[in-house]
């Protein structure tokens, strides 16, 4: 009689269903988890009136020409008539040229008024254009861990179709 009383007083919960549910939940979360690398973007404003290649009369234009080979690789990067090369150093030089063009003062009036026109061969890979846009947009300041912006306005020249 005494042992029956003790059994009634301490009912043992069956943990199995709860553990089952918890494991199901854990498996669900583990399977749906996806680590996404951060993405950034470069804004480009292109109203129809100011279509690709149409000049803004108030803006001072800088022209960046990008020549590609048949495989879409960069052969030559030029700013104005100046050839900068075709490797990573060319983009570093472009960055320096842009800084010079805005008078060495990022964020100043020249920075706001200057517009860069990217004139790339039709088959040039997108990655090279992103590198050029990055070089024109600014640089990453190691000290402040912020982006120093050189140019805010970037546009494209009309596409150069093969054979044109």
């Amino acid at each position, binding site marked *: 009689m005494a042992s029956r009383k003790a059994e009634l007083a301490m009912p043992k919960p069956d*943990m199995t269903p709860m553990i089952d549910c918890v494991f199901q939940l854990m498996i669900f979360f583990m399977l749906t988890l996806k680590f996404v690398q951060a993405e*950034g973007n470069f804004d480009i404003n292109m109203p129809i009136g100011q279509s690709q290649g149409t000049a803004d009369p108030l803006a001072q234009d800088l022209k960046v020409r990008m020549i590609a080979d048949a495989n879409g690789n960069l052969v030559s990067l030029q700013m104005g008539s100046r050839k900068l090369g075709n490797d990573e150093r060319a983009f570093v030089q472009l960055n320096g040229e842009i800084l010079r063009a805005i008078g060495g003062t990022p964020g100043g009036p020249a920075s706001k008024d200057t517009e860069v026109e990217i004139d790339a061969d039709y088959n040039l890979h*997108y990655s090279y254009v992103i590198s050029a846009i990055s070089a024109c947009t600014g640089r990453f300041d190691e000290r402040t861990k912020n982006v120093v912006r050189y140019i805010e306005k970037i546009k494209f020249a009309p596409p150069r179709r093969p054979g044109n």
Partner: protein
Amino acid sequence: MAMDAPEVDMTPMIDCVFQLITFFMLVINFESTQADERVKLPESEIAKPPKVKREDEVTINVGFIRNADGSKRVKDPLVFLPGEDVSISQMTPRIKKDLQMYKLQHPGDGIKTTIKLRSDSEVPIGAIQDLIKLYQEEGYEKFALQAMEEAPKE
């Protein structure tokens, strides 16, 4: 005298499992990123996500269908839409349809939508410009070129 089966103390295991569940619940992101895994974005040190979330944006993924060895199955890039892949030249009716929907939802408003272009590194820039032109012709003005945020070089 029968010996009782030894009872296993489940408490530490349940503690650990709950900790794990809490972790996964916190790090999981149910928000649809609209990103297509077939698109390998180029990297840029200064590409940063916008500080203020855009009012309205449409993500367009452009890339190639590749074989297991990474070679391109078709030469021309495709636009990866939910459920199907179409060529850039086939995009006009879809852009018009999206615009109709937008105008129904925002009557009297101008187009405030930003077209977020996620393009594979090897897509020809001319194809991207063609796509931008199709959107421009329908009145879209704001475009954003996506890049993967690259860790700053030491």
